[in-house]
């Protein structure tokens, strides 16, 4: 038994065979047997224990070993993945392995683009590089997009230097230029990259769909490519994520709302919890929609600069809609309660949206929050009080 173990141990110590061996296989098409016809034979790059990713087309042999060549057209699995991530499903783990990839047929003079290993960042880049030959250096930003990763310090000077060394980039290209997305400048110091690796950083455009023009323009970015935008579409794609972030807390608040709505002259009433709870739940929902959907979408058209104020405005509008829709069941005091609650909820959520915008300064957000949070808290307290008091008043009338 012991001998056997030693023997197998020794065999594991040997150099693993990385090169695929081709042994001619019998052609399965002639054997008429069970099941559907056999598929194509396994490709030379399939290895036991590894799965070839759908976006990898083939491999390019280089000085530093094989480099995966990726497709520029998104496949079905890419599209499904994108939709899921946009809806907030599994958004914390949508990444690809860091390292060197390539697109088209690059040679030692082709440009090197650097990006994050968040799959959406990578997918947009390769799509926008259609018909271009380039190297793509993917950093380990822990699956976070370029902008957030630069802020968090995972898209960093050290990470760029580490990947240059790890992939032996200097043996693959003979020039010494790297194109980095401009938004990574928050985390990357061009001077330090140059000092440590010899590679000069060229700041590419903010949006990858300007990248072809940038390449044609001799690696010079026009002012408009250097400036961030926050278009309707860019705001629209953020909405599902904003909503998915509030759902969990919203359910707890809903429970509280139902309990509070049941409080009345008879201490607690199930029927009132349901009938009045329905109205309060509608108010909560409209406050959420106002703050997490309407504010992002209509951002530039809502008056005032502070997000909490924009949120309060949309919240009051949404609250009025609820009041009018359910007019017959709502008295004056509860109207005040509803409007205060929708305004506070919407204001708070809108304030949270600052984190997703590319133009709010932390000093500004902090200043706004110091004023807004006490007001939001007061609005909630007065709103709840009005809601409960109303239940007693109504009882008195009928």
């Amino acid at each position, binding site marked *: 038994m012991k001998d056997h173990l030693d023997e197998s141990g020794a065999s594991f110590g040997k150099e693993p065979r990385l090169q695929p061996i081709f042994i001619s296989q019998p052609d399965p098409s002639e054997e008429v047997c069970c099941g559907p016809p056999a598929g194509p034979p396994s490709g030379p790059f399939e290895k036991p224990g590894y799965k070839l990713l759908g976006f990898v087309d083939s491999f390019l042999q280089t000085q530093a070993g094989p480099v995966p060549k990726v497709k520029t057209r998104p496949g079905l699995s890419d599209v499904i993945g994108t939709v899921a991530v946009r809806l907030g499903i599994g958004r914390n783990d949508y990444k690809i392995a860091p390292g060197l990839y390539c697109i088209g047929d690059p040679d030692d003079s082709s440009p090197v683009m650097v990006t994050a290993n968040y799959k959406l960042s990578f997918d947009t880049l390769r799509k926008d590089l259609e018909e271009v030959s380039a190297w793509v250096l993917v950093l380990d930003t822990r699956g976070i997009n370029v902008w957030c990763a630069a*802020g968090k310090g995972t898209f960093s000077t050290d990470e760029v230097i580490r990947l240059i060394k790890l992939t032996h980039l200097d043996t693959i290209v003979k020039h010494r230029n790297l194109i980095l997305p401009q938004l990574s400048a928050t985390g990357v110091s061009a001077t330090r990259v140059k000092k440590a690796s010899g590679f000069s950083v060229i700041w590419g455009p903010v949006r990858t769909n300007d990248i072809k023009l940038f390449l044609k323009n001799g690696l010079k970015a026009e002012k408009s490519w250097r400036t961030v935008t926050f278009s309707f579409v860019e705001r629209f794609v953020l909405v599902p994520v904003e909503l998915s972030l509030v759902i969990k807390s919203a359910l707890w608040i809903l429970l509280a709302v139902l309990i509070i709505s049941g409080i009345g002259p008879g201490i607690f009433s199930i029927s009132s919890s349901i009938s009045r709870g329905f109205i309060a739940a509608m108010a909560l929902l409209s406050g959420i929609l106002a703050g997490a959907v309407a504010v992002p979408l209509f951002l530039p058209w809502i008056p005032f600069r502070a997000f909490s104020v924009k949120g309060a405005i949309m919240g009051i509008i949404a609250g009025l809609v609820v009041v009018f829709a359910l007019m017959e069941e709502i008295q004056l005091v509860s109207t005040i309660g509803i409007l205060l609650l929708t305004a506070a909820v919407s204001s708070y959520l809108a304030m949270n949206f600052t984190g997703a915008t590319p133009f709010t300064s*932390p000093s500004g957000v902090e200043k706004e929050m110091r004023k807004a949070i006490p007001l939001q808290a007061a609005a909630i307290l007065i709103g709840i009080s009005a809601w409960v008091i109303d239940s007693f008043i109504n009882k008195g009338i009928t």
Partner: protein
Amino acid sequence: MEKFRYLSNVTTLHLDSELCTGCGMCESVCPHSVFEIEDRKAKILDQDGCMECGACANNCPVDAISVTPGVGCAAYIIQAWLKETGLKQDSNAQCC
């Protein structure tokens, strides 16, 4: 981004023109076109456009720019406040 303006007079951005060599790095990294190079010196064109991302200060080769960088995100700031008051020990304030 002239279309989007946030609060005025809050940014911590500061430029020391004495030190500036006019290399143009700040102009090319700023996503809000805050800087312009004029007569071989950087000039702040639009102070209130600054979102304090820190890209300029991080890339100025002579450290002529200072700014307190961070993400303008309410959730992040709340967590930082909680940490200050000792209510929360978790050091990982999460944002985007």
